């Protein structure tokens, strides 16, 4: 059900003033109230039981106190808005086939309120320094005006340079990174040397690390600087996407083997559990998933349990390294393609002048609020043009209605329809512009041939041709990341490169893009993205056994036969086992997709999503033993034990599945899950450490900058 009302209440607020408001809410639609303190919760539950308001949900959250006038103002504001928008019928029209998603905007409010509280901890005017990659997430939570309201004077981006601020109080809002803390130490020590006195506060988001505090201590400024944590774990990017905005998770965990973010993931899960849970079943695969799950369980045990109706029933945790093939494929679903080409940042994209057909670039929010985008985001790119032109025709018809209207009709048209049409018009021309621009870019670089190579790799077909295509790609010094992507795909699908190929391709790569990429290769190897097949690793036993039976000459021939056997990788075996690669000789209708493979033009069903589908279908890993063995195990399925009393709610929440990707997920995977949801009458909520794509993933492997 759609959540309409949220209240932030304090025990000090006068209750009577809410009474009529509550009655109004209740009469209109069921809602959810979030109460920020115990006394308020008690009062509220009393109110609800008195008026038999069963649909109001009560939650208890510990959040810092806010200033009172602010709250009252906001509540009043809300009341106004909400009462205006309750013209709909009594909303119990929940469609059985697709339960509605919980409302995640609450997470934003939580984060916002806590941030404001933290800022108030340093009273008086202050300058705020913000870590560069926290700026966009912060922008989604609190705008400049809000910050200014809380005595923030000037805003700066952290640039690791000496500062020019004249303020007596400096506040730093940063990720817990050694490099940034080191910079702050330098700033403070420079002030000290200069004999300048200021007050400093560091707010770490989402948490602080001991290593950072240790650095403060070592640099002699522990105590001069106060530190705090802004537990901003989750940023809702859309109705069904929540991001931790931690792109470094992938490198830190999978490459460096550092588990610093594991507890963070657990805490994020804990937050979701306490607001939208309790979860009844948790599935997962991967070492990190398992640890995050355990960390969450621990935190649940530490806190108190409250009986509540669950909004989210099931959870699926998956490590990114369970499926590295999918994020390395070219994206061809609209949203994914936009991300690949223009890079969507925090749910927002900047369209360059050749898209907007003006002299400025425009920033556009891409989410379900954009009605045009919402209809094409999950479509295969080849379908988008047709859709957009149909839409344009419809729009024209709607505009044309004007002719032959009398004054009165015209007046209604202008006041009711025109604004909507104009808005749609604007969005439509933007997306058409974007599609054209993407088309241009893709035809320029022989996209078809590139896709063909990718599909051949996935299918395991004409590998030699693929290798020479990649070779030429490297030779012509076309985009370095693309070359690397193809090499990694080759290695992943073939279970490593033959030593001879590995050496030759690496050599040519270094020649074309610079020898310092030795570091990149070492990283790729460490992570298993690009490896050399170990000669004889799987062969020796068989060979020696056979070698004894036959003479040397035939043994030589047999070795050849075996080496082709050994090349059959886990990916191939998984592909067969799970039917990931549909037969290429069948026609695939992209207009009416029959499975999740449509997100890759019908060539490949993403392994990650297929696993999710299978596990949900089987309610566990039974029957998938061989698959999990090939994926290195660490799978689990645990009943968390919820006994919801309301059967209807229970089944509804059972069909809402939260999928958490540790290490990032792509828009294509989200599209695939949305498709799966529509097919099975489920709703997926994707929680990810960050939205990723091939370029981001590979760029995080680079070490070649000073």
């Amino acid at each position: 059900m759609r959540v309409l009302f949220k209240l932030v209440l304090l025990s000090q607020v006068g209750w009577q003033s809410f009474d009529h408001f509550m009655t109004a809410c209740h009469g209109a639609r069921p809602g959810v109230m979030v109460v920020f303190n115990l006394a308020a919760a008690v009062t509220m539950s009393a109110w609800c039981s008195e008026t038999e308001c069963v649909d109001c949900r009560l939650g208890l959250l510990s959040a810092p106190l806010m200033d009172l006038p602010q709250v009252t103002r906001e509540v009043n504001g809300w009341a106004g808005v909400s009462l205006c928008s309750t013209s709909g019928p009594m909303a119990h029209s929940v469609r059985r086939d697709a339960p509605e998603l919980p409302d995640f905007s609450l997470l934003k409010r939580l984060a916002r309120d806590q941030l404001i509280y933290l800022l108030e901890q340093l009273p008086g005017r202050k300058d705020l320094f913000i870590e560069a990659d926290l700026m966009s997430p912060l922008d989604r939570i609190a705008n400049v005006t809000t910050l200014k309201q809380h005595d923030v004077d000037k805003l700066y981006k952290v640039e690791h340079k000496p500062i020019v601020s004249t303020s007596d109080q400096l506040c730093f809002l940063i990720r817990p990174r050694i490099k940034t803390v080191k910079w702050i130490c330098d700033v403070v020590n420079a002030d000290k040397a200069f004999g300048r006195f200021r007050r400093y506060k560091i707010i770490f988001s989402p948490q602080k690390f001991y290593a950072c505090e240790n650095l403060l201590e070592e640099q002699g400024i522990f105590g001069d600087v106060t530190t705090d944590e802004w537990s901003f774990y989750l940023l809702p990017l859309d109705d069904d996407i929540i991001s931790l905005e931690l792109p470094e998770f992938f490198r830190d965990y999978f490459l460096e083997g550092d588990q610093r973010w594991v507890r963070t993931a657990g805490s994020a899960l804990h937050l979701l559990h306490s607001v939208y849970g309790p979860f009844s079943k948790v599935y997962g695969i991967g070492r990190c998933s398992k640890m995050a799950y355990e960390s969450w369980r621990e935190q649940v045990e530490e806190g108190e349990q409250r009986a509540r109706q669950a909004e989210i029933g099931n959870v699926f945790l998956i490590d990114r390294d369970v499926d590295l093939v999918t994020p390395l494929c070219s994206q061809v679903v609209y949203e994914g393609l936009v991300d690949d080409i223009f890079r969507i940042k925090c749910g927002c994209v900047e369209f360059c002048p050749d898209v907007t057909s003006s002299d400025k670039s425009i920033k556009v929010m891409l989410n379900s609020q954009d009605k045009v985008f919402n209809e094409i985001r999950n479509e295969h790119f080849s379908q988008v043009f047709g859709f957009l032109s149909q839409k344009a025709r419809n729009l024209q018809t709607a505009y044309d209605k004007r002719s032959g209207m009398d004054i009165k009709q015209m007046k209604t048209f202008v006041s009711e329809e025109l604004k909507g049409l104009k808005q749609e018009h604007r969005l439509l021309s933007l997306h058409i512009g974007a599609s054209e621009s993407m088309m241009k870019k893709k035809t320029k670089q022989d996209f078809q041939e590139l896709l063909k190579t990718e599909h051949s790799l996935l299918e395991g077909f004409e590998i030699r041709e693929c290798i020479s295509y990649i070779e030429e790609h490297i030779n012509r010094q076309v985009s370095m990341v693309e070359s690397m992507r193809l090499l990694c795909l080759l290695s992943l699908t073939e279970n490593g490169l033959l030593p001879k190929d590995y050496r030759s391709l690496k050599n040519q790569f270094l020649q074309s893009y610079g020898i310092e990429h030795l570091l990149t290769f070492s990283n790729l190897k460490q992570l298993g993205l690009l490896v050399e097949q170990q000669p004889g690793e799987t062969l020796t036993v068989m060979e020696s056994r056979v070698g004894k039976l036959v003479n040397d000459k035939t043994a030589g021939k047999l070795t050849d036969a075996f080496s082709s056997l050994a090349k059959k990788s886990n990916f191939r075996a998984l592909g067969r086992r799970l039917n990931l690669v549909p037969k290429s000789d069948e026609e695939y209708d992209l207009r009416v997709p029959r499975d999740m493979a449509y997100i890759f033009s019908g060539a490949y069903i993403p392994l990650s999503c297929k696993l999710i589908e299978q596990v949900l279908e089987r309610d566990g890993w039974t029957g998938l033993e061989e698959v999990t063995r090939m994926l290195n195990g660490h799978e689990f399925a645990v009943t968390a034990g919820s006994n919801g009393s309301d059967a209807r709610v229970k089944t509804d929440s059972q069909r809402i599945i939260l999928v958490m990707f540790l290490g990032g997920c792509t828009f294509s995977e989200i599209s695939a899950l949305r498709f799966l949801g529509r097919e099975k009458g489920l709703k997926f909520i994707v929680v990810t450490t960050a939205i990723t794509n091939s370029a981001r993933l590979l760029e995080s492997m680079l070490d070649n900058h000073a």
Partner: protein
Amino acid sequence: MFYVTHNPYISEHSEKLLTSLILYLLDCRWSVHDDVILLWQDYVSDWTPEETVKRMQQGKVYSLEKFRSLQDKLLLLDEAVNAHDGNVITAVLIYLKKSLSKEILFRELITREIALRHYIHYLKEIGEQKLLLMQYRDHLNVRDENKRRDFLKNCLSFPFSPDDATHVQDHYTLLERQIIIEANDKQVESSGQADIFKKYPRKASILNMPIITTLYYSCFYHYGESDGTFSSPANIRKTFRISDKQFLLTCLGARAKLKAWFDVDALFTTKNWLGYTKKRSPIGFHRIVDILQKNNAPVQVLQDYVNLVEDVEQKISLAQKYKCHDVIINTYRDLKDRQQLIVYRGKVERSSSEYRKIEEILSNSVRLWGEVSPRYRSRICFPSSKLNLNH
């Protein structure tokens, strides 16, 4: 404070200390009361490693100082690893780093992979780690090219794997060469002696560019120099063991950019022992056509290479794409495809030479035409009938 002053087990001195500590804690934290009381309670009863790790995870007050014996330290470390919390693992490691000798710490970490990786990552972040490749990486921090070259030279003695050693050697040789070439060309360019630099001024320095970019540069500015000079394409090719294919592609790009079509031609021409010339290429000619076309080669040049494409369908489609009429007409003539010629006649201007040429071929004796060769029938008839439908 009440508790503190009434405890009989605490000496006056530590009582004072504790009091000031608690005052301090109350000062800087806003919800410290529970912690402070707990701190007091636990002052007499030691925390186990497990409790300590738990408290660290929860951000509560803790103390590591009492883990003094090696055994206690390692128990604490193992407990942190068991808790899967990287933050705590690193915190314990920092304590161990301060309180254990390097040798002992590493000896113990060797058998604890997870802790070791955390330790290496931590050292890397605070800039203390000097593993093999990381040392090589430091060359990126050296700005001055001569110093960077010396740095790389120094790297040559590191025990890299044989493969990597070759690459590092290459890196050093490359920079050494680039410094020489750069100095020379800069001087030549500013003195205005060579036409090529006047006509195509250098956009950037060649320093720190990849090998292939250097080769391209050399093919662009130093083509035709004798093998002996450092800047000649042949010398670079040999020094860095560049493959035929790679060399050809780079060279082709550079010469085509300069519109030196004669050089382009020479790249593919081989003579056999009888003196006949023949064009050969290690990569498909359709690719060559692509590259030439991207460099704005005129039709006269393009069509020579389109003609060399082996696959007939590919040849025709390329010829159509780049408007090489002669190639198309000749191909249809050789295929004896009257039908296609007639279709094609409809696509060219009536007054053009191509039109006349088609007319001429078509009006030639019927004998020339005869039957369409059966080999091509299936291939050609299908698209031609499709085309007719369109008309």
